């Protein structure tokens, strides 16, 4: 799928999925999920080379790791809409006996998930390991990962960032969701991190920026460029500037919806802003 209109339509449907999932169980993380909706829709449908079906080893296909596992509603919606499991199963999000746990896990055997995440800061290391196995297997495919900006406060990331350049992990594209927000407020208030770009560059990564991280054309262009930078001896970092809560006016420009579900009235309002495109689950 590379038609921009199709990607736009899918994004709107994914937003509806996210909102309805968190509303039903009155829990979950809509803000970051909405902020990265365009990105995940684009990479799964127009950037990554994926095989049909799912097997854990993912040999001869691109892999994706979600490190900031709390945006699971987005991950589940995109995986379901890409055919990894039935869309109806989105109905079971966060319910007892569901494969769609609050945070993604391999434990319940949900196709599309290759690692548990949620406890932050671990995904970069995992993605690097998978990238190194691809090299050992002489598999030319790439590994993609997504991380929150607040998540970079976890020290394990910097161990991983140092290692990736030292070991020339040039089949990895790690994207940082730069929405400037975390649970307790703006990242600049909670723990200012200075220039994340300068930090990655200081660790000898190739760094690209996507200024309009909620614009499908911009993501397509930016990620194509990121791909072109792989294989040059250095890991690639994409700084994706997004708007938390994007696509729902009252969820934007605030960190309030990081981990809060809309009530009935708010849901109706949010869905009105995102009319059904591909059919609700």
């Amino acid at each position: 799928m590379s038609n921009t209109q199709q990607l736009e339509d899918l994004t709107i449907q994914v937003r509806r999925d996210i909102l309805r999932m968190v509303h039903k169980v009155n829990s979950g993380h809509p803000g970051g999920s909405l902020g990265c909706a365009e990105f995940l829709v684009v990479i799964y449908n127009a950037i990554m080379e994926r095989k049909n079906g799912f097997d854990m080893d993912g040999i001869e296909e691109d892999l994706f790791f979600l490190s900031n596992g709390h945006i699971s509603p987005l991950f589940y919606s995109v995986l379901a809409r890409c055919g990894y499991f039935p869309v109806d199963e989105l109905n079971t999000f966060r319910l007892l006996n569901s494969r769609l746990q609050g945070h993604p896990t391999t434990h319940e055997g949900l196709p599309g998930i290759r690692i548990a995440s949620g406890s932050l800061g671990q995904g970069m290391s995992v993605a690097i390991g998978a990238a190194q196995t691809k090299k050992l297997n002489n598999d030319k495919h790439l590994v993609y990962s997504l991380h929150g900006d607040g998540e970079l406060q976890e020290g394990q990331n910097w161990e991983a960032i140092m290692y990736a350049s030292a070991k020339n992990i040039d089949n990895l594209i790690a994207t940082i969701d730069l929405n400037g927000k975390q649970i307790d407020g703006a990242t600049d208030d909670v723990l200012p991190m200075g220039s994340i770009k300068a930090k990655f560059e200081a660790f000898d990564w190739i760094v690209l920026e996507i200024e309009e991280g909620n614009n499908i054309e911009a993501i397509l262009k930016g990620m194509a460029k990121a791909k072109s930078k792989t294989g040059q001896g250095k890991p690639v970092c994409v700084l994706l500037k997004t708007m938390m809560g994007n696509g729902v006016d009252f969820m934007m420009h605030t960190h309030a919806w990081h981990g809060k579900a809309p009530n009935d009235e708010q849901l109706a309002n949010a869905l009105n802003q995102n009319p059904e495109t591909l059919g609700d689950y």
Partner: protein
Amino acid sequence: MKTYTYTEKKDTRSGFGDGLTELGRTNPNVVALCADLVGSLKMNTFIDENPERFFQVGIAEANMMGIAAGMTIGGKIPFTGTFANFSTGRVYDQIRQSIAYSGKNVKICASHAGLTLGEDGATHQILEDIGLMKMLPGMVVINPCDYNQTKAATIAIADYNGPVYLRFGRPSVPIFTPADQKFEIGKAIQLQEGNDVTIVATGHLVWEALEAAKILHEKGISADVINIHTIKPLDEKAIIESVIKTGCIVTAEEHNYLGGLGESVSRVLSQHKPTPQEFVATNDTFGESGTPAQLMEKYGLNSDAIVKKAQLVIQRK
């Protein structure tokens, strides 16, 4: 009574190193990672023979555990190497989420466990690692007793699909298990047959248990001695069958009595066959600097301590 002798002493970590070397030659999927302790873990030969399958991560254990988890995706079998303290407590959440909960086929190989690390002192002498690791769902916990058994265990865990914690140590200890003895995960090994007391030991304490059985024999007490190299899954049947015969038990380990082998045995016996039990283990304390022998003496982890506990527990029958 069987006689156990030895002609050579060797460190169990060398058993790990030599087992890893053999795996390097026989299993192309085995990869090794180390956090700046290659010499201490005896990984040099593997590295020399398989440089492309070795990953030096530097002093960054959390990253090492995550990388190991990721490497399994695509079929590799990663063996991580560092001290027991840095293999467990330091990286507990990385192991919990990325390895155990994710069901990844990582072998966490931990050297310098317990007091016998010696002079470096309590910062490095972990006595809580068995407890930490056995509480993780799905984690296999193995603590072999000598060079041969550690080598065999290292080779055996590559054929088991799932996370394993393999614990071994620094000092030279007698080699008394047969070099050709197959290692079966979760299968206890009966070392002595006796009727008066059961001694269940793991790791470095297995040799001490054999020495204790000799002393007890001279005192007219016959001990059933069992080598529990696998703490999880525990060979419950072997333990229950032994205490049915003896009516009392001593557990022996180089670990805190809280969370160790002894508590696992207590749980099994309280459910199936309530039995008087005494513990040879550290008593909710940190270690300190000293030679291994001095420390094992001071903290009551040697054959004399096992003899005393055996005599005590027999009186409680």
